[in-house]
């Protein structure tokens, strides 16, 4: 898996959660704009579980909270996956 694959997979996982947007969420756009994910705390629980099950990365509770910021989420997963 390369960084592009991760971006696509992570974006799909986020969109599988109950996102608070009417149109599909674009992770690349959120990274570019240094935006936050359109997820509340329950949506983050859901995403955390999907990330662990799909990508094998377990985020700590603190990382989970910080993961509301798209850049943090993407960078921490990228680092854990050695990409």
């Amino acid at each position, binding site marked *: 898996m390369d960084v592009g694959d991760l971006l696509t997979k992570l974006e799909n996982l986020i969109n599988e959660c109950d996102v608070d947007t009417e149109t599909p969420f674009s992770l690349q756009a959120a990274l570019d704009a240094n935006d936050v994910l359109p997820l509340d705390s329950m949506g983050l*629980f859901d995403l955390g579980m999907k990330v662990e099950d799909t990508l094998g990365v377990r985020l700590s509770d603190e990382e989970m909270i910080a993961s509301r910021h798209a850049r943090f989420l993407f960078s921490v997963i990228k680092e854990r996956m050695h990409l």
Partner: protein
Amino acid sequence: MTGLRIAGIATYLPEKILTSEAAAASTGLSAEIRKTKLGINSVRIAAADETPSEMATRAIQILCQRDGLDPQTFEFLILVTQNPDYRLPTTACIVQAKAGLSRQIFAYDINQGCSGFVVALAQAHGLIKSGLFRQGLIVTTEVYNRIIDPSDKDTFGLFGDAACAIAVTSAAETPQEGTRGFFFGTDGSGAGHLIQRTGGSAAETGVARDAFLYMNGRAIFEFVVRNIPSEIDRFLASQNLTKNSIDQWVFHQANRFMNGRLVQQMGLSEEAAFFDISDIGNTVSCSIPIALERLTATATFRGGRTLLCGFGVGLSWAGCIYDFPRN
């Protein structure tokens, strides 16, 4: 397998209502999220004089008056609560006197939460099946709001106080209705994820917040979504049944988000799993009996095979199949 039949369910709800707007003002978790995402518009809060024994007694009185039952005829009382009137004696003993139950009654408490009703149902099933008793009473009575911090967004306004009285009897004469099989589970390694750290003999010293209920929402969510589907699959396989054998599902009514993800994970349709907590919230051990009372009162209820499953504090889970007559 002849089991027990639920002869009647009655619910007592405290009068005081806590709206989602009021809970939002106290915690910061918006009323919109509470209503749309959690499915909770309001919960009931027990007043100071509405002790678990008092609420239990009122539920028993409602049941007996409505169904014309004599309280003296119940041979056992299994009372489920995690917030008893006192550490001792058991709340069941207090209820025996308050509700005018027989002095010869076999009465005891079970300290269990969201799995508690099915645990009690299993014990009643065993007591009746053994031939020791013919009919009895299960009471669930819960006042979680006594131990909830009003500023805690993870718990305040999500849990509602309630009591249920459930009359149970042998199903020997109603072979088409009753309990069929049970399954249980315990994972004490997760005990700290839903806990009140003070009040017991291992009371932990620390900050004042320890007196309140602590819930690790993420851990509970993962426990439910990761474990309950496979536990149910394992149970159904042991009974030579499939999901298609089940007409309806009554899970512990935690909140719309968690129950929705559970249903999704199990590949069930939303309509197959009864869910109705908008005016009561998560009522812990009362949630399944209230759901059953509401389900069977709906115009569309046609009876059939029902899977009940409670899960939560412990961590623990318990489930069973209950067959209603088809109509």
